[in-house]
């Protein structure tokens, strides 16, 4: 399954909807898109992972890198995820303490984090 990426804006947040599989092959595309967004001035980003079927450590590495980049601009990066199998990956790696994780894009965009 391919990776799909779609961007939209909600108030001051840029929402990146990710779909499909994020692995060692597709993660570089996710990374490029995030770098483009951040370098283009989007410093409050919501990454919607609800349509992601597969995520491994390469995808996590990209998200952690993007978080560091937005933090350098006093920005924020939060996640939307309600799938147990994806949340499990964040719990195992301790990243639930690093990323604000919300149940919906609306919640994420209205949060101050």
């Amino acid at each position, binding site marked *: 399954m391919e990776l799909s990426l779609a961007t939209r804006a909600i108030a001051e947040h840029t929402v990146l909807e990710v779909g499909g599989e994020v692995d*060692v092959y597709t993660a570089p595309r996710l990374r490029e898109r995030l770098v483009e967004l951040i370098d283009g001035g989007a410093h409050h980003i919501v990454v919607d992972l609800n349509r992601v079927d597969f995520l491994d*450590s*390469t995808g*996590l590495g990209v998200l*952690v*890198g993007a978080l560091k980049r937005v933090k350098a601009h006093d920005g924020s990066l939060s996640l939307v995820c309600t799938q147990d199998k994806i949340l499990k*990956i964040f719990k*195992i790696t301790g990243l639930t303490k690093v990323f604000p994780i919300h149940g919906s894009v609306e919640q994420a965009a209205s949060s101050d984090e």
Partner: protein
Amino acid sequence: VTSGVAQVEIEIPSRTAYVAVVRLALASLARSAGLDEELVDDLKIAVSEACANAVLSNEDADGDAPVTVTWTQSSDGVVVEVGDRGAVYDPTSTAEEVDSQGFSTRSLMSSSLLKSLVEECEIGPRDGGGMRTRLFFGR
């Protein structure tokens, strides 16, 4: 296959694009073996980690040897072995590398996923050079 030992060997070119092929093939084998869906999800992640490590390890060594994946299923469970011919490294190293753009090179997260998702995980040098990862999933 419902009894005895069944073995499947897959060899992929050492390219990241082929990791998904292994993941799909092994998920299908796991379902045929009657593993429950949560274990299939764990196996897909662990196999992807091991294959990604193998391809990246080959790349680090500028090698082009194929990555070999062996699936062995018995009444006890499933063993997946992934072998490369890349650089030999210390799998217990806890040094996290960060590239020029500040992106993590993922080794710590990869090893914590492997440790948590797999009943037994051994990573060590492979006979003839390279590294070998052995994953055991009990029934």
